[in-house]
């Protein structure tokens, strides 16, 4: 695997950690819709090491979204175990899952999901509002401004989503995902609503974050977007069909430099 071994940020909580923040062991997910039982995920075992950049691929109905929800602690597996950062989270209740999401997971969505009529800074601060640590107003502001400038939005902290382009909105969403220094960054079709150039910009940000040691799991169905990841996991019918390292990941920053427009705020 091509995961970069970085030093652990936290001491391992159990011996299940093994430097792998994500470990799925024979995870199943069934839904019941009326008489029909839908087996969305049918026994997936997966280990993602710290510092990996994984693209989770598959056609619609392959179970990748369900797996994504489980990885994001938005949903619980029907069977099997999910160890996140060494701790089994498959049996936690709603509130405990909410805390895990707050501390260990950053989400980036296809449709950005920013709060309307709310400044970029306040959007980025959102996870801290629900954080157990109590920060002063000034500290919140400082942290938010730092992550916003890390995604190239310095100077736009007071802009509302409606005043920002799609790419900029997605950067605000990335800033929001990063503000609590999560264990993993989960991106669900992050470029689905963006044009190809902006998509490359977002991939450039992801690659830079990944180089700094952030673990990224990205759901996508686009082959050329998956090419920016270091590892591709392909699902079909609720099972992992293929799992391979990308030997030569596309370099988004380089592509942008060779592209005709170079007005990038990077």
């Amino acid at each position, binding site marked *: 695997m091509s995961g970069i071994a970085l030093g652990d940020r936290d001491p391992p909580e159990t011996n299940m950690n093994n430097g792998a923040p994500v470990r799925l062991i024979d995870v199943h997910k069934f839904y019941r819709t009326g008489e029909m039982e839908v087996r969305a995920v049918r026994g997936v075992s997966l280990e993602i090491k710290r510092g990996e950049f994984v693209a989770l691929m598959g056609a619609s109905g392959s179970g990748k979204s369900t797996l994504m929800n489980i990885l994001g602690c938005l*949903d619980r597996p029907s069977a099997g175990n999910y160890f996140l950062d060494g701790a089994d989270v498959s049996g936690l209740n*709603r509130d405990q899952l909410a805390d895990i*999401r707050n501390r260990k997971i950053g989400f980036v969505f296809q449709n950005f*999901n920013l709060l309307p009529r709310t400044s970029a800074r*306040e959007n980025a601060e*959102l996870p801290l509002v*629900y954080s157990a640590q109590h920060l002063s107003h000034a500290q919140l502001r400082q942290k938010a401004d730092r992550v916003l400038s890390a995604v190239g939005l310095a100077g736009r902290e007071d802009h509302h989503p409606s005043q920002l382009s799609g790419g900029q909105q997605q950067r605000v969403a990335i800033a929001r995902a990063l503000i609590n220094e999560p264990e993993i960054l989960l991106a669900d079709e992050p470029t689905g609503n963006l044009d190809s150039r902006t998509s490359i910009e977002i991939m450039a940000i992801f690659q830079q974050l990944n180089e700094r040691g952030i673990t990224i799991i990205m759901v996508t169905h686009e082959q050329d977007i998956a090419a920016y990841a270091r590892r591709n996991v392909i699902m079909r019918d609720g099972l992992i069909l293929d799992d391979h390292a990308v030997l030569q990941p596309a370099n988004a920053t380089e592509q942008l430099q060779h592209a005709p427009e170079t007005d990038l705020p990077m």
Partner: protein
Amino acid sequence: MRVAPTFNVALRALRRNKMRSVLTALGIIIGVGAVIAMVGIGNGAKAQVEAQIASLGENVILIFSGSTTSSGIRTGWGGAGTLKIEDAEAIRREVPGVIGVSEEVVSTTQVAAGNQNWFTRIFGESADYFDIRQWPLADGTPFTAQDVRSANKVCVIGRTTATQIYGNENPIGQILRIKNVPFTITGVLTPKGLSPQGVDQDDIVVMPFTSAMKRVTGGTTLRNINVQMGDPAQITAAQQQIISLLRQRHNIRPGRDDDFTVRTQQEIAETATATSRVMTVLLGAIAGVSLLVGGIGIMNIMLVSVTERTREIGVRMAVGARGNDILTQFLIEAVTLSSVGGLIGIICGIGASSLLSIYAHWPTLISVASIAIAFLFSAAVGVFFGFYPARKAAALDPIEALRYE
């Protein structure tokens, strides 16, 4: 709990939808305003009645003649002349704790002085009358017990009578002709205003009851006897003693009805205030209904808001909001709407009732208690009607909320 940031979140959400927030709060503003104004009007009426009852005097027992049944026809109070001067003297003598007794006869007649004349009420009383009714003179002196014994031709007059006959002149020492008998005016009473029945209490001539019986009414019986007790604790006992004393004096056999009626001031006050209390409750209840409607308005808007902001709720949950955080946020929104509405409503209610006082001359009384209750009630309306939508929001599934279109 992370209440402080949640509070900010809630306030920001309200500010984002200013018009809607204002209109929602308007329901509560009207409800609370109506409660404050209506209860103010009711309490004002009650206070007015109470003040008028108090103006009867303090610790007073009233004994009316009448309430007899002759040939099956019951006469009203004072309808039959059964109370004698001697009855009053017996009460004065035999009932312990009595500090004042006034024999009362009443007549209405024409009075005249110079070229002016006026139709007014003549009250024959004892010298204790002014103490019993706590009715001091504005000017001059009252008649004395000696005047009563000698049936002297003296009187004091009320403010209205004085103005009608003498205008701006000083009536003291002047002669007032009543049924062609000249009475010397010794004093003018302080103004008392309207009675609970709307009678001008200052349109009056008060004279010794002996003089009144001899020269004006011509009768030998009293309409009623006013008794004042020194100690309020003795009133009930005295009432019983008066009843048995009078039954004995009037030779009423056991089992037969009294030919008189004894009422304490408290009984009269209770009857009178019961009416205004009913009015207060009724007005308050009607206003309360509008507060309820305001509460339903809050619930309605909160439900719309939860539906509309489903995606926002999903995002908040995805980044770590617990069900309780969402519940608190929506509850705070509802309570803020209702309590801010309540505060403005209180101001509007006070404004409305002072306008009624000023322009319609309705007595209003707004107590601190009614303001506090109205405010707490409006906050409670917010909690009550906000809880269901808030719980609905908190129970949303984050995955479905995030996908909501």
